[in-house]
């Protein structure tokens, strides 16, 4: 029988990260008759049991004093040891900041082909193929592991998570054989960006570009974001001009996002920007230039002046959502 391991992370004491839900659902989609085991290095009982809601009944929790504070190297080693112990064929991780550090290490440790930044999976556990954007999304490649074993990292927010069960998963302890040298890099602390919703985690993003003409006009963008419960994003031009903080930048030198809805306000759609948002599920563009490249990737477009359109759009959305 084939074996799939899904690396999961807790969001808080009750639940898993959404990216973990996506990974669990993706595992189901390729499983066929394969077994699926979720693997964690931390998380409360309640959070880990919730993997059952996504159809995975077995969770393995690695326990070791060196896993006390998060270490990417110790986590990768523990996961590799578990993967060897069950002769796993596929390991699925989210391609978030954590996954991007452990997936390449797993590939080397297990001599398994690394399939990073996946936006689509096809085939099954015997011949898995992964598609991902390259050249800033200007082309897609489909790759498969030549070694039979694969490490798959999923681009966050692209795969839709599906709740398919309500039974709590069973948690089994696993004791990896770790030494101090495995934990030479450790997280000392994490800081949350206060107050604002991060574009990398938001389901809806309202972004402003040079067409907003100055930082003093961004309240129009913020207002629309507030109506939709969305995060505020920005193009490189406005971040470079100092109108908005770097944390909001969407694009090749900023963040890659795939929200359900991306609203581009006064953004022409330079390649660098498209690279960061073209995998959004739905794109609405507002621009006064009908030939702006952003309209080529948009599902919906409004050709008009952002200063007139944004207040009208906000009022219309409010009427629809609250009316």
């Amino acid at each position: 029988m084939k074996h799939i391991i899904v690396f999961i992370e807790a969001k808080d004491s009750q639940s898993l990260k959404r990216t973990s839900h996506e990974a669990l659902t993706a595992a189901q989609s390729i499983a066929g008759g394969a077994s699926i085991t979720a693997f964690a290095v931390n998380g409360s009982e309640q959070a880990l049991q919730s993997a059952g809601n996504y159809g995975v009944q077995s969770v393995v929790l690695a326990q070791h004093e060196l896993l006390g504070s998060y270490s990417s190297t110790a986590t990768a080693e523990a996961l590799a040891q578990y993967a060897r112990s069950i002769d796993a064929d596929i390991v699925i991780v989210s391609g978030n900041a954590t996954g991007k550090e452990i997936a390449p290490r797993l590939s080397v440790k297990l001599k398994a082909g690394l399939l990073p930044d996946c936006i689509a999976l096809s085939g099954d556990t015997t011949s898995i193929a992964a598609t991902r954007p390259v050249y800033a999304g200007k082309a897609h490649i489909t790759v498969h592991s030549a070694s039979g074993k694969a490490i798959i990292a999923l681009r966050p927010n692209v795969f839709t998570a599906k709740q398919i069960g309500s039974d709590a998963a069973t948690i089994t302890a696993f004791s990896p054989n770790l030494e101090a040298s495995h934990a030479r890099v450790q997280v000392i602390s994490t800081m949350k960006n206060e107050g604002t919703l991060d574009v990398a985690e938001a389901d809806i993003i309202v972004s402003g570009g040079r067409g907003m003409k100055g930082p003093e006009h961004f309240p129009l963008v913020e207002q629309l974001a507030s109506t939709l419960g969305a995060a505020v994003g920005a193009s490189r031009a406005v971040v470079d001009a100092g109108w908005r903080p770097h944390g909001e930048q969407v694009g090749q030198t900023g963040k890659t996002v795939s929200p359900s809805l991306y609203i581009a306000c006064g953004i022409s759609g330079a390649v660098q920007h498209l690279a960061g948002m073209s995998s959004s599920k739905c794109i609405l563009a507002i621009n006064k230039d009908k030939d702006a490249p952003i309209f080529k990737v948009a599902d919906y477009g409004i050709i008009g002046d952002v200063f007139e359109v944004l207040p009208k759009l906000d009022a219309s959305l409010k009427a629809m959502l609250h009316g």
Partner: protein
Amino acid sequence: MNILVCISQVPDTTTKIQVSGDGQTIDKSGVKFILNPYDEFAIEEGLKLREQFGGAVTALTVGSETSKEILRTALAMGVDKACIVKTDAQLDSYNVAENIAGFAKNISPDLIIFGRQSIDFDSSSMAPMVAEMLDMPSISVVSSWKIEGNGIQAERDIEGGKEILSTTLPCVISAQKGLNDPRYPKLPDIMKAKSKPIEEIEPCHGNHLVSLSSMALPSSKRVGMIVGDSDADITSIVTALHEQAKVI
């Protein structure tokens, strides 16, 4: 401090990409190639550390003859030595990492610096992969850091915030935009760089763990409903977002 900076040559972001007849690679004709933008931060960081701690900076790339261009840029910026693992073959990231790790073993660097990702294949996997092969710690997407003795404290961007990490030398890091302001090479240095030696290293064509099946232009499945800015137009968009796209 002995510093190795690993860089790559990529198509300019504004270049139009076309898939060549083999359905596996891009058509390189007419494509302008540049130094990967994130690698500028990696080179600059190496040079700054040399200024602070002394030592030498070696720039390494894996690529064909044309990739020497970016090594000339690195030399013009001020690296001490430039080396190329020269190959025309398409290597997978594992094989590239093997070549880099093999080179690194020979020069035993205290620090290996990469750009956060190369903007062609965008996999962000090279730094941890090379680190794993060399049994070194690594920190990806470093936005600021300090080195004291053997100890390193680094800050990196994660979803919704930042992470502070500690590790020790020797180690591998990948540089995020904002880590520094890369210097522009001066014209005399650009001229001098043209005649500096570039050491060529034989590639090891070892293990391929990944095979490429196909490359294609993305298919557009966008709705493409573009309207004007009248009240009725805006209402129609809001309705479509709600009823057709079901995203609000």
